[in-house]
């Protein structure tokens, strides 16, 4: 198991965004985490990346307990997050955005040239200010930036959000390419179809908990939709803020 | 579910009831106690006003000002000039404070648009400008300063008593104003502004309006403190009135007492008074201590002494907030299966 999450608990103030979540990801797998807004998916990813301090639980990466490790240290370990909303450094050029990530990168095949090869549409915009790029270009840059660190585990948060369908196509094409090279990916996605297309495993989150999990091939859309909306749960079981 | 909103606890009702007899008792000090005690209490009242004002600015409006000495000095300056034009000295003190405080109104249009650090140093620059302009005025003899000779009409004993009553009265007025402000709608909106300006604005709170009220009040308070100081020290030397050390004292009192609480500045002023009295002669070490205390409290005890007590024990001497009774019933609903949530 490359990644092992045990009883992870993450809060926003008093709100328990992630409640006792446990799951595992093997090397080479692509885990898609789906769920409605506010289900806790982004918080979970941020906790994995080290950007959000968990209230309880453990994160074990390649046998190492990294729960207490800060975000920039996790990058060295091999975890990279493409955050929700891209979060590029808009004041810097595309190339500079990539170069920032190179500084503490692990050794590996990814560098600026490799990224521009993987996302050819970016090559022409190399010297443009990141703030001036289109949505699709920004998303590609954000993914490229994460790749620059040569991660062993790539976390992607809502990469299709706010993008035109054709841009999303491009992003997922690149993702499939990555998956083919054996990358381990955890992606959070609201678009069920896209998620089921690329995932080997699917987990559905509802109100901070994983309510459904299993290999993508064995799951029907109906099962996922039911879990997504919390249908079919016993009456009266509502979430009370702790 | 039994939830009600109450404005005061039993403890706070008792405290309020005690205030009037306390003030009445204090009024007798000049006649009943020694000159020394009278003088010291007058000084204490000045500190009290300054602490309360700075606390209102920083703790309630979120405005850190490193330049309140501007009003402190302007108040004294205005009073002196008025007496030089023949105004009765005690009327001049009150009028001077009002005039100096009034400058805050146009100033606020400008200064309140600045954020955080810019406002802080901006106010300091304002204080330096006031200082620079005042020392150009030959009628106060530039840097050497001038005395409030108009006081000579009154005997030393009378001067002391009048200054004391002026100080006591001012302290009651300004603390009362802060209290009223906090209990009013403006007070609630100030808390909201302090917690989250954007959110407050989005529910219709006039952010600028709330801050302006506090800014002008603080200016009036500091200006009054300045005129009281003039009445007791009699001389007006611009450098000491416009000095940034007054801000140091105010920060110490507000921070150590408890920023954002009502009782905090009172505690802070008393503490500062004691420290001044005991260690004031130790020159720089005493100031180093003040600065060091400000750092320590800012970092480790940001809620100050009273704030920490209030948090720990839920104590509140004076009723300035709203308390929800019966909240326990919402937080812990009866679980359906009899298990603890």
């Amino acid at each position: 198991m490359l990644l092992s999450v045990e009883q992870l608990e993450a809060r926003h103030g008093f709100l328990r965004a992630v409640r006792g979540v446990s799951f595992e990801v093997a090397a080479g797998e692509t885990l898609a985490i789906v769920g409605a807004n506010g289900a806790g998916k982004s918080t979970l990813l941020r906790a994995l990346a080290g950007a959000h301090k968990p209230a309880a639980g453990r994160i074990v990466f390649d046998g190492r307990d990294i729960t207490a490790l800060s975000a920039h240290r996790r990058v060295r370990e091999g975890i990279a997050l493409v955050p929700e909303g891209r979060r590029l450094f808009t004041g810097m050029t595309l190339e500079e955005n990539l170069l920032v990530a190179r500084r503490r990168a692990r050794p590996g095949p990814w560098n600026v040239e490799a990224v521009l090869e993987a996302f050819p549409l970016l090559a022409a915009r190399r010297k443009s200010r990141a703030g001036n790029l289109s949505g699709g270009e920004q998303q590609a840059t954000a993914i490229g930036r994460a790749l620059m660190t040569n991660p062993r585990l790539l976390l992607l948060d809502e990469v299709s959000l706010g993008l035109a369908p054709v841009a999303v196509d491009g992003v997922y094409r690149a993702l499939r390419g990555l998956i083919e090279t054996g990358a381990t990916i955890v992606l959070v996605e609201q678009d069920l179809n896209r998620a089921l297309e690329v995932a080997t495993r699917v987990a559905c989150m509802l109100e901070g908990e994983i309510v459904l999990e299993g290999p993508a091939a064995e799951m029907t859309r109906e099962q996922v939709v039911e879990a997504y909306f919390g249908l079919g749960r016993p009456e009266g079981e509502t979430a009370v803020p702790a | 579910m039994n939830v009600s909103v109450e404005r005061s606890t039993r403890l706070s009702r008792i405290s309020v009831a005690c205030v009037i007899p306390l003030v009445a008792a204090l009024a007798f000090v000049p006649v009943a106690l020694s000159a020394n005690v009278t003088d010291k209490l007058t000084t204490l009242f000045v500190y009290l006003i300054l602490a309360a004002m700075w606390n209102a600015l920083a703790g309630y409006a979120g405005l850190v000002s490193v330049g309140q000495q501007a009003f402190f000095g302007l108040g004294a300056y205005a009073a002196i000039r008025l007496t030089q034009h023949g105004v009765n000295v005690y009327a001049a003190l009150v009028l001077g404070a009002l005039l100096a405080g009034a400058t805050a109104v146009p100033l606020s249009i400008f200064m309140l648009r600045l954020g955080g650090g810019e406002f802080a140093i901006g106010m300091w620059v304002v204080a330096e400008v006031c200082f620079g302009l005042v020392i150009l005025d030959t009628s106060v003899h530039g840097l050497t300063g001038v005395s409030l000779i108009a006081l000579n009409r009154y005997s030393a004993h009378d001067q002391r008593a009048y200054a004391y009553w002026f100080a006591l009265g001012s302290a009651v007025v300004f603390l009362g104003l802060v209290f009223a402000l906090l209990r009013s709608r403006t007070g609630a909106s100030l808390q909201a502004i302090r917690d989250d300006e954007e959110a407050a604005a989005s529910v219709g709170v006039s952010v600028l309006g709330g801050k302006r009220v506090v800014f002008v009040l603080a200016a009036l308070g500091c200006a009054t403190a300045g005129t009281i100081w003039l009445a007791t020290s009699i001389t007006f030397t611009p450098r000491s009135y416009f000095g940034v050390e007054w801000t140091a004292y105010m920060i110490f009192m507000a921070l150590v007492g408890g920023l954002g609480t009502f009782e905090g500045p009172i505690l802070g002023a008393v503490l500062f008074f004691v420290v001044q009295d005991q260690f004031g002669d130790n020159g720089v070490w005493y100031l180093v201590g003040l600065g060091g205390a400000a750092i320590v409290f800012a970092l480790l005890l940001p809620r100050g002494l009273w704030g920490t007590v209030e948090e720990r024990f839920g104590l509140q001497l004076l009723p300035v907030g709203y308390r929800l009774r019966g909240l326990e019933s919402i937080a812990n609903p009866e679980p359906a299966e009899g298990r603890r949530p």
Partner: protein
Amino acid sequence: MIWVNQIVQGVLLGGYYAVLAAGLSLMFGVMRIINLAHGDLAVLGAFLVFLFSKHGLSPWLALVIVLPVMGVTGWVLQRGLLERSLRAGPLTPLLATFGLLIVIENLLFEKFGPDERSLFPYIGKLGYDSWTITNQVIVGKIYVLILAVAVFLLAGLQVFLARTPPGRALRATAEDPDTAELVGVDSRRVYAFAAAIAVATAALAGAFLAMRSSFNPYSGSQQLIFAFEAVVIGGIGSLWGTLTGGIVLGVAQNIGAQLNPQWFLLAGHLVFLAVLAVRLVLASLGGNWGLRAILGRA
């Protein structure tokens, strides 16, 4: 020609203000902290160089020791004090650095007393040598040196930020420390580094102050105000703006002094307030209340 001379002197003085303000500008640009103790750190640097000079070391050699020491001081200050202040809330850095201001000033007073000090006697002819351009425009060599250093310093910082990996890391952290962490940048280290540069340049400015003029333990407050005024006039966030602001301030002060020697400081303050007022009015006309727009940030 008298006026031309005053303008020239003002420009030269602006060079000093630029060196003084560079650190303040950097700290604010990267960390959003206004270090109220900045001026006092400059004066601390001045006293350190002074101490070495009194014991026979050339001030220039003393600087070689003092600048790194002050850099380390900045690092420690950031990690020990400012980092915590940042976490606690927006008011806290102001309170903590003000406390620091009081502590430094009074400790310096305790150690050195109230006397004015100067490095003037220790820099040989540089202190009073000058070039006579016309018989009314005379430029002191030390002033020209300071201006030259200011230009080099700002250019160097600009290149550092634009071209080097640590500079990029600094820019990224300044814009979005959270995301910077996600790509492997240790934001705390970056902040400490920025603080080190800021305090070291402050110390350099302090030494320059000591060379061209005099200083005492309480000079720091005044220097802070100058630095702040220069930064605001020139536009927060722009390094070259700091030079422009410094020059405008210096020129304003000298012209004011030419009208009346007592108006030196006041002229500077009034120009500062005027620039601020103009910016606020422009911002209100443009409808953008953002602080950066108001204070001219690029």
